[in-house]
């Protein structure tokens, strides 16, 4: 499996190593432009309006750079998975002296590693943006203050407050986010496999169609659950603040458990399909 993983990682690395630094640099440049646009440097007086408009646009849309980067990595993962398993390349992949389960695990691990690395780069890019913005801003900035205040307030309230709920909420949100991310990936891979197993043409298109359909249903159920929960909590008579807190903990944990169960189910089903039902044409 180590060998498989090495090759899987090497396949995406050439693109990633070029795009990742570009994303960070672009984010920093965006921060500089926004910082200048929101300041009142005299040398830019003649084109002040241009900077201000540009700053407003970039400030609103700069995160699209991160979205595009994440999308690119997802596409690379999907294409690699699909090509290796369900096209003629499968003739090489599945005749290796490696079990199908190990091949699948390698693909999942590869995807998780690249998603984590991409997430880290997105965080780095966000920090680069904020840092560049702070450096360029001529006076104390509105955005920077909010960013710093929010972080500081959250950390302070989580660690210095007597109330343990905030810290628990942070952990629960992290768990929920991780479970959502991993289950989403496993569901995506499962849907591609389903598409490849049940049809002979347009396999990838069908797989992605199934994924978006399933995802819409899952997200619908998740949000319905949250809305119903909020309505029940708000309509409950004489409910203590402590009880509300516990209810929110329950909602977060149930959401995490739901996504965890979904991820495990998707993995087991995918494993079964690849081991028992995948016949290359």
């Amino acid at each position: 499996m180590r060998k498989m993983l090495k090759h899987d990682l090497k396949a995406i690395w050439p693109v990633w190593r070029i795009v990742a630094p570009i994303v960070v640099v672009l984010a920093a440049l965006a921060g500089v432009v926004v910082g200048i646009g929101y300041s009142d440097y005299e040398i830019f007086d003649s084109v002040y309006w241009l900077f201000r408009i540009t700053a407003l646009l970039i400030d609103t849309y700069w995160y699209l750079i991160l979205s595009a980067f994440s999308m690119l990595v997802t596409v690379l993962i999907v294409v690699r998975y699909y090509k290796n398993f369900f096209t003629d390349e499968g003739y090489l992949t599945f005749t290796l002296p490696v079990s199908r389960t190990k091949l699948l695990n390698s693909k999942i691990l590869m995807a998780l590693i690249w998603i984590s690395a991409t997430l880290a780069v997105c965080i780095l890019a966000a920090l680069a943006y904020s840092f560049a913005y702070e450096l360029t801003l001529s006076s104390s900035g509105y955005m920077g203050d909010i960013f710093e205040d929010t972080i500081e307030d959250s950390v302070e309230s989580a660690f210095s407050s007597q109330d343990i709920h905030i810290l628990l909420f942070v952990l629960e949100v992290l768990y929920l986010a991780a479970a959502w991310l991993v289950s989403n990936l496993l569901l995506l891979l499962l849907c591609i496999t389903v598409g490849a197993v049940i049809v002979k043409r347009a396999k990838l298109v069908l797989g992605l169609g199934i994924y978006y359909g399933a995802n819409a249903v899952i997200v619908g159920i998740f949000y319905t659950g949250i809305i119903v929960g909020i309505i029940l909590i708000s309509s409950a008579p004489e409910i203590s603040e402590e009880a509300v807190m516990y209810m929110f903990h329950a909602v977060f944990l149930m959401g995490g458990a739901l996504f965890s169960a979904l991820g495990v189910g998707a993995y087991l089903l995918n494993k079964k399909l690849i081991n028992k039902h995948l016949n290359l044409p």
Partner: protein
Amino acid sequence: MYVVECKGLRKRYGKGKLAIENLNIQLESGRIIGLLGPNGCGKTTFMKILTGLLVPTEGDIFVCGQPRSEATNNFISYLPERTYIGGRKKISAMLDYFEEFYPDFDKVKAYKMLESLNLDPDSHISSLSKGNREKVQLILVMARNAQIYLLDEPIAGVDPAAREFILRTIVSNLNPGATVLISTHLIQDVEPVLDEFIFVNYGGNIIGRGTASELMEAEGKTVDQKFREVFRYA
């Protein structure tokens, strides 16, 4: 011990008809065997099952005495009818890949074969013609010192001169004691190198088996003539 042994092998695609109805076959070591039959008779299906590309519906398969699994792929070197190499990789990278996954891969032999075919190891696979890709694939397969070589239509779609070269490459690079199973319709071309032939009819049913010399002695016919006689369309 047989290098390949199948008992009661059946393969059904979905809910459709059986591609292989009930195949019982044993292949001995050190033979070059022609698996001959009309289109859709189950030759490719049989090879794919042996390599694990297809999951059999029923039956037992043993490769070199072991039940078929991913581990038995260590004994089998498979050349499919499709080209599975492509992309921006260099030929040398494919050689490294094979060396990494197959302990029996002989890189020196592979480089010699590339040289004899005037193929530059630093060429990108995407820059090669279809014919040259097929040649690289053949080199990857034949550079292994495997126990079994499964060659599915190795000379289909290439000119007669290239056919001769491919067959010479197969025979001269064979691991001693290895078994070669060749599936092809170009019987005349492969006949000189065959030790044995197996005629397969629809549903993977074996309807004839023997050696070219036995056939010539008994009936005065070549394998190609016999094939045309057996599988004559009404």
